[in-house]
């Protein structure tokens, strides 16, 4: 295709992505370097019969005018990144000096909002991604093994958790594990504790969120693997069988190698999606026990006072996180395709 026609064909798409994705990243970076203006303080001297006193008060009008004139706020440099709500260098340094053990140090880190959110996001990503892949793989193997007539309905029902709006899917689960819901009651019965509630403790909340994550994305892995299984070479399978390979060995040495490229693909998509985990926390009202990076941005943006600069700084850190996460893929693509063709 000629350069000129390529240009015109991709123009609408690239314009849109440039304006609303690339520009937005620039805007986030800029915003994170500024902070909201302080309130304008005026000093009033009151002189009475017993001498003069000076009072300070907030000049609301002047504050509003100043914020109106410079909505971006005043230059803050990198100070927002290093404050307590983000990288918190001072606090981390103090914790390092005062901690007696690594466990103690990790405990103090978890009290800092950013490290807390980071810990949850990374744990969630690291736990949910492999388990999703494993569960999806077994469902695919299972569906492949049953009668053809059962496959259609199985695929139909399996799609539900994935297609349904994340907020709704998580809510449905949340209502069931509520202490008064059916699963909640079942858990109380199993734990033999009539007051057991998932919402009460941090570990159980984390587990429920991760169970939701696996439940909602296993269908994706399943569908991709199932499609891959349809293209496994039948001759190789039969040859392996003639050579005396058991079923497990056939899966291990013929099917699994065939599915490795698909696994890379699923893992990539899942890493991206799990790193942005956000909706289940809203649905489960889990903010007291689990906050992800996306959720931290959401709380900063919402509410009475919109903490735009704080949200922007967290966003930049999140984007850096995504970049680090994707870097192996990029390096590999660079090596494979970067050389002139």
């Amino acid at each position, binding site marked *: 295709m*000629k350069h000129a*026609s*390529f240009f015109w*064909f*991709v123009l609408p*798409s*690239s314009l849109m992505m440039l304006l*609303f*994705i*690339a520009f*937005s*990243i620039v*805007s*986030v970076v800029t*915003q994170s370097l500024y902070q909201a203006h302080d309130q304008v303080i005026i000093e009033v001297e009151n002189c009475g019969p017993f001498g003069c006193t000076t009072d300070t008060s907030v000049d609301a009008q002047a504050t509003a005018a100043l914020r109106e004139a410079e909505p*971006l706020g005043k230059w803050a440099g990198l100070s927002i990144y290093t404050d307590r709500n983000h990288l918190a260098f001072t606090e981390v340094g103090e914790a390092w000096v005062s901690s007696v053990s690594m466990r103690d140090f990790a405990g103090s880190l978890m009290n800092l909002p950013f490290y807390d959110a980071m810990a949850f996001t990374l744990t969630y990503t690291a736990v949910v991604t492999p388990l999703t892949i494993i569960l999806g793989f077994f469902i695919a193997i299972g569906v492949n*093994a049953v009668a053809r007539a059962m496959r259609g309905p*199985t*695929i*139909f*029902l399996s*799609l*539900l958790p994935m*297609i*349904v*709006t994340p*907020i709704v*899917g998580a*809510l*449905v689960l949340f*209502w*069931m594990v509520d202490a008064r*819901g*059916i699963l909640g*009651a079942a858990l109380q019965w199993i734990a033999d504790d009539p007051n057991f509630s998932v919402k009460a403790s941090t570990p159980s909340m984390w587990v429920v969120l991760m169970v939701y994550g696996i439940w909602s994305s296993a269908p994706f892995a399943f569908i*991709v693997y199932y499609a891959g299984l349809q293209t496994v070479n*039948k001759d190789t*399978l*039969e040859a*392996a069988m003639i050579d005396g390979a058991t079923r497990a060995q056939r899966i291990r040495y013929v099917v699994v190698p065939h599915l490795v490229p698909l696994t890379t693909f699923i893992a990539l*998509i899942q890493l991206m*999606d799990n*790193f*942005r985990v*956000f*909706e289940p926390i809203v649905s489960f009202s889990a903010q007291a026990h689990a906050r992800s990076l*996306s959720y931290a*941005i*959401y709380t*900063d*943006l919402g509410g009475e006072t*919109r903490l735009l600069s704080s949200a922007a700084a967290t*966003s930049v850190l*999140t*984007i850096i996180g*995504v970049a680090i996460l*994707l870097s192996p893929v*990029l390096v590999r693509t660079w090596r494979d*395709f970067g050389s*002139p063709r």
Partner: protein
Amino acid sequence: MSKATRLSPSVQVFAYSFLCLWLILAAFPFLWTLWGSFKVEGDFFSKADWVNSILGTLTVVETGGSFTGAGYYGAWVQEEFWRAALNTLIVCVCVVTISLTCGTLGGYALSRSTYRYAFWFLIFALMFRAMPPITLVSGYLLPFFEWNLWGHLSTTIIVLVAINQPFTLWMLHAFFKNIPKDLDESAMVDGCTRFQAFRHVIIPVMWPGVITTGLFSFLLAYNDFAVTTMLLSKENQTMVPKLVSFLGTTQTKGNVMFAVAAAVSVTAPLFVMIIFFQKQIVSGLTAGAVKG
């Protein structure tokens, strides 16, 4: 079935029971919620006995019948959920139309260009696809406030289109790759320009891929929460943020059933969609492109 794939009975029993377990896990929560949405709160959240939620003991006591539409009435009429449904409809139709128009043009060009910049274009799109939407939203808020763009449906539509664009491009690019190059090239040999070849030769054969991509664009717009909750004013809210707002306001009023009814209402169109388009959804997921 060939000999290599025949199974011993024990393996077969294991496979069936594992699948049944998974199917119950996948579908039961939705059935449960659908059933419970026609009960009163005392039954849906039954502290006394979970059998109540099936039989509807308290529903009979409170309303006289074992089913009640009170949750739906409260959500749709009293809290004006229909308005949100209408907004969702507008947003989804516009997002799908605009996404596909831009996406087919771009995806076609990307599938036909042999230069390296087309490849890097796709890699950039992949990186954009990886950005969590909420990080982008935090970049929009200040400019949108300043230019009075905040709160309108049209702004949200454009933003959703832009956020969907990387994935739309990837998917359509994969589909166009499967349409033989010879088709449009022979048209160009016959004297068509590139655009004419696209218009008269490619457009008539591209619909299966476009419909599949459209389904995923629809899902992205329909399921979105991060963008719609941040960029829409209260009266323009779509269904998902409206549903979440029920959680805040109605839980205190003791009427969580509005939210349950709304959740079922949000799920229903998706359910119908899977029934009709199961094949397209599966082919879309396996197009080797991206997930919705």
